[in-house]
Every structure is written in structure tokens, then in C-alpha cells.
């Protein structure tokens, strides 16, 4: 017995509570179960562990680079600040979790349980009406991280198994229900492309697809617009982050002044020119983000591969819910740029608002929500509401992202580590879930899960005859519509 306990303790201290080895261990076991040769299991193990360790280096680099600026803002204006971006949010969530002495390995267990819940809900789709399986690995990691901090924030005394189990159910329900909501909009956009969106703005896509046709006119599409060519440089992550960060941190550090920065940042040598210091500091964010993404890419590709395998084996007929960028090929290239641009207008306006109305927290635009959320919204909006909708909806989304993000970073205290998740669903739905959990505790969690599960039921009862058809056979779906509208199939109107 004592030996067994000893083994368990060894396992707990060296693997279970060390996220890098825990992830490596899971990949190794997963590959072994798939009967891959031992050398591939070892390669997978190494890639997962090293990938995670790269991520840890980058996270602390990101937060460390930010710290002098945060200290300066606190000193001079009694302000805190957060970049609204899932990578910054993930780093801030990890720091918050470790700061209260809890193990971040729970993130990975939450992810696995949530994925299992999603599988179960699809397996029993006859009753649950869930058609989609969420397989976007890097997003699952980011969301598990942020949600883990939310639960620890609301239930500081809950033990690890309780945290993991409860959050696994909650997050798995969200993944299932929210990605399931995108089935109709995505199928109509892609004319039966065979996938749904599993990303960070799924409720947003649903809202946009409901609002766009009321706002604009699909005849006035943005395909006829000519956008300035220089905007295409924002297609490159590194360039876009470099530019964004230089604008924001340039402004902030200039206001804080060279004297104060010399006092708080040892890395600012007296010989260095202030302008070059600012540029170096700003570009450092691009450096750490690039490293972070390399880390995530390395260990997540192992994960996504096995998820895809599981979904094909276990769940034939289920729809994969994938990255939002998979829809971009179905919109005009203008739509992507247009959404980004108007999202940026909205965000900048809202940030000015925060400053004017003296908000206790300052928000800095992060590239991922700014670009990917708003570009996605514009692609969907343009199809149903043309230029007008593709401008207005991303603009509104930009404003919501900043205000929701500011609230969340302040309320859930991740502003102390300079970040919040920042994508649309995490500026709207999830802060609301967090507040409900905080006030109503376990009852709140139960209410949220039940309400979420009701959504697919409602949609099902409104379109009983086509609900599964649109996901399984789009041509047959169009035939049913044609019959209802009394026109030939090629004239059918899909709204």
C-alpha cells in the first residue's frame, strides 16, 4: 500500500501538476492507444513537452515585457491595463492561477473532459440536438485557460477534482451549443461546405446572421469597392502586431515619459534613445507572441490530429467545428479587410471613450479579436446585408469588444497581469456567465448549463423538418425549401 501511495505521490508531483509533462504524457498514451510505433510516440511526447515549455517561456516574457508599463500606469495615473487578445489572456490567466498557488495542469484536464462532454452530446444527438464537434485545438487551450481562472475566481475554495469536473461540463456544453449555432449560417454561406465554426465568436456569428439582413441590402455588396493596397500588410500577424503595439505602447510610454521609464525599467539603458526604446519595447510583444504561437502550434497539432481521428472514428455524420478563417474563402477578399478596418474604428472609438470617462482600466487592442472576429462578421454580414451591414456590425463589435473586455479584465482581475481573452464571445457571454457564477455559485452554474442546452432544442422545434438535413445533405435541404417556396430549386431563396 505504501509503495502504491509513493508511486501516486511521485506521479502527482512530477507529472500531474506539471502541465508540460502532463500534456506529453497524454499525447504519449493517446498515440500508444492508436497503436503508433514507439518511436512516433516518443517523438509526439517530445514535441508536446517542448512545445509547452516554449509556451511557458513566451508567456512569462509577454507578461514580463508588459510589467514596467503596468507599474508606470499604476504609479502615475492609478490605472491598470489589459491587451484584449486570447494569447495575452491565456498568459494572464495562467499567471492568475499560479499566483494563488493552484496548478495550471487543470487546464489540460478541463479540456479533455469538455471534449468528452461534446462527444457525448453529439453521440446522443437524437435527444440533445447537438450536431457539431469542436476540434480547434489552439482555441480549446485558450478557452480552457481563461475559463479555469473564471471558476477559480468564483470558487476559490473548491478542490481540484471539483473544479475540473464542473468546468469540464460547463465548457463542453458551451463548445457544443455555440458551435451548433453556427451550422445554419455557415452552411448557407458555404452552400453546404460540410463544416461549422468552432472558434471564439460563435454567438457573434449567430447574432450577425440574424441582424445583417435587417440592416442592409445584399445587392449592394462590397465586391465593387476598391480598398487601399497597403491594408494587405495586416494579413501578416507579425507585422500587424508590431504596428498595433507600436501605436498603443508608443502613446502610453510617451505619456509616461522617459524619466519614469528609466526609474522602473532596468532594461532601458541611459545611453539608449527614447524613441528606439519604445520601438524595441513594442516589437518585443511581436517577438513573444511569435514564440508563443510556435509553442502552441507545436503541441496543439498533436492534439488536433487525434481529435480529428476520434471524430471520424467515433462519430460518423457529425460535423467538425473548425477555425473561423475556414469561411474566408467563401467571402470576397474585401470583406476580410473591411471587417478588420471597421472593427478597428469601433475599438479605437471605445478606447477613447474609456479614457474620456476615466475608466479604471485601459484597453489595448490585440490583433486576434480585432482581425479574426470582425473579419468573420463582415464575411457573414456582407452575404446578407451588403456593404452597410459589413461596416456597421464589425464597428459595433469593436465597441463591444473593448467595453466587455474592460469590464472582464477589471472584474476578474486579469488586468493585474495585463491581459484578457478579448474575443467576442469572451467579451459578452462569458463575462455574463462569470458574474452569474460569482453571485449564484453552484446554482448559477446549473442555470447556465440548462439554459445553454435549451438553445438547440428551441431551434430544433422551429425547423423540425430541416434541422438535421441542412447539416447532412444540403442539396436535399434546398429541395425542401424549394417545395415550401413553390419555386424550382435553382431559384430558391436561402436567407
Amino acid at each position: 500500500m505504501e509503495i502504491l501511495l509513493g508511486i501516486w505521490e511521485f506521479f502527482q508531483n512530477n507529472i500531474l501538476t506539471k502541465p508540460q509533462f502532463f500534456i506529453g504524457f497524454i499525447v504519449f498514451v493517446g498515440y500508444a492507444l492508436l497503436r503508433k510505433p514507439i518511436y512516433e510516440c516518443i517523438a509526439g511526447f517530445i514535441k508536446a513537452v517542448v512545445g509547452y515549455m516554449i509556451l511557458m517561456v513566451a508567456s512569462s516574457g509577454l507578461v514580463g515585457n508588459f510589467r514596467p508599463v503596468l507599474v508606470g500606469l499604476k504609479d502615475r495615473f492609478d490605472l491598470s491595463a489589459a491587451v484584449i487578445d486570447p494569447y495575452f489572456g491565456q498568459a494572464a490567466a495562467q499567471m492568475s492561477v499560479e499566483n494563488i498557488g493552484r496548478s495550471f495542469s487543470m487546464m489540460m484536464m478541463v479540456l479533455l473532459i469538455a471534449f468528452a462532454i461534446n462527444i457525448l452530446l453529439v453521440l446522443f444527438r437524437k435527444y440533445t440536438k447537438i450536431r457539431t464537434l469542436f476540434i480547434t485545438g489552439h482555441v480549446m487551450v485558450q478557452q480552457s485557460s481563461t475559463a479555469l481562472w473564471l471558476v477559480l475566481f468564483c470558487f476559490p475554495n473548491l478542490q481540484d477534482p471539483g473544479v475540473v469536473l464542473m468546468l469540464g461540463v460547463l465548457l463542453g456544453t458551451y463548445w457544443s451549443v455555440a458551435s451548433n449555432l453556427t451550422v445554419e449560417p455557415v452552411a448557407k454561406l458555404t452552400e453546404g461546405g460540410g463544416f461549422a465554426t468552432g472558434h471564439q465568436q460563435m454567438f457573434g456569428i449567430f447574432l450577425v446572421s440574424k441582424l445583417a439582413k435587417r440592416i442592409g441590402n445584399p445587392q449592394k455588396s462590397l465586391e465593387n469597392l476598391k480598398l487601399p493596397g497597403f491594408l494587405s500588410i495586416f494579413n501578416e500577424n507579425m507585422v500587424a502586431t508590431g504596428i498595433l503595439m507600436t501605436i498603443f505602447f508608443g502613446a502610453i510610454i510617451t505619456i509616461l515619459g522617459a524619466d519614469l521609464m528609466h526609474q522602473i525599467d532596468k532594461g532601458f539603458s541611459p545611453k539608449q534613445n527614447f524613441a528606439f526604446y519604445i520601438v524595441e519595447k513594442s516589437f518585443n510583444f511581436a517577438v513573444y507572441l511569435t514564440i508563443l504561437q510556435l509553442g502552441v502550434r507545436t503541441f496543439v497539432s498533436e492534439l488536433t490530429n487525434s481529435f480529428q481521428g476520434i471524430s471520424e472514428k467515433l462519430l460518423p455524420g457529425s460535423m467538425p467545428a473548425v477555425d473561423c478563417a475556414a469561411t474566408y474563402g467563401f467571402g470576397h477578399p474585401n470583406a476580410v479587410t473591411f471587417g478588420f478596418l471597421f472593427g478597428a474604428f469601433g475599438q479605437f472609438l471605445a478606447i477613447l471613450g474609456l479614457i474620456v470617462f476615466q475608466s479604471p482600466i485601459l484597453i489595448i487592442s490585440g490583433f486576434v479579436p480585432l482581425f479574426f472576429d470582425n473579419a468573420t462578421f463582415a464575411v457573414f454580414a456582407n452575404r446578407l446585408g451588403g456593404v452597410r451591414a459589413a461596416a456597421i456590425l464589425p464597428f459595433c463589435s469593436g465597441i463591444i469588444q473593448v467595453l466587455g473586455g474592460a469590464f472582464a479584465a477589471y472584474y476578474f482581475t486579469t488586468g493585474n497581469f495585463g491581459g484578457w481573452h478579448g474575443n467576442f464571445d469572451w467579451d459578452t457571454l462569458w463575462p455574463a456567465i462569470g458574474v452569474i457564477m460569482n453571485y449564484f455559485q453552484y446554482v448559477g452554474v446549473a442555470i447556465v448549463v440548462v439554459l445553454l442546452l435549451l438553445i438547440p432544442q428551441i431551434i430544433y422545434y422551429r425547423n423540425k423538418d430541416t434541422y438535421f438535413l441542412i447539416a447532412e445533405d444540403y442539396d436535399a435541404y434546398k429541395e425542401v425549401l424549394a417545395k415550401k417556396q413553390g419555386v424550382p430549386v435553382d431559384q430558391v431563396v436561402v436567407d
Partner: protein
Amino acid sequence: MLKVIAACGSGMGSSQIIKMKLSKVFKKLGIDADVYHTNVGDAKSQANNYDVVFCSASLEGQFAGTKAKVIGLKNLLSEQEMTEKIEAADLK
């Protein structure tokens, strides 16, 4: 061995999806290929060392002037579209 890059905006989600589907299609067509997935910036700087680049149709313009063949995909998950485009480009 055919050297292939799959590229997307952040090099995370979509390119990974392209890679998974492509590997399957190449296997079916009996083409020996090695697929690497990454972001657009990285792909641009490395494209000349590869035979062919696959990306979303919306990103095709980013690769103007590269020596590698560039194939833009409308549906990143459609094995049929990939097969057609691979055959049209006569990749081996």
C-alpha cells in the same frame, strides 16, 4: 517527394485543417508528399524552397512573385476540391 506548405493567417487553425485534409488526399492519389503548416509571413519567406503552397483563396494574392506553385482553396475541408486542383496543376 513533393514539398508542400499549407498557410493561413495565424498558422494555427486553418492551415492545420488544410494539412490534415491534404495529407489524406495525397495518400489517396498515391503522391509522396511532406506537408508543413505555418502562417502567411513564414510561408512567404520560405515558399521558394517548396514545390507548392496551399492556402485559402482569400490569401492567394499574398504570394505574388513566388517561384512555388500557389493553389488557393475555396473550401479548406473539401477533399474533392483539393483532388481536382492537384490534378489540374499536375502535381506529382
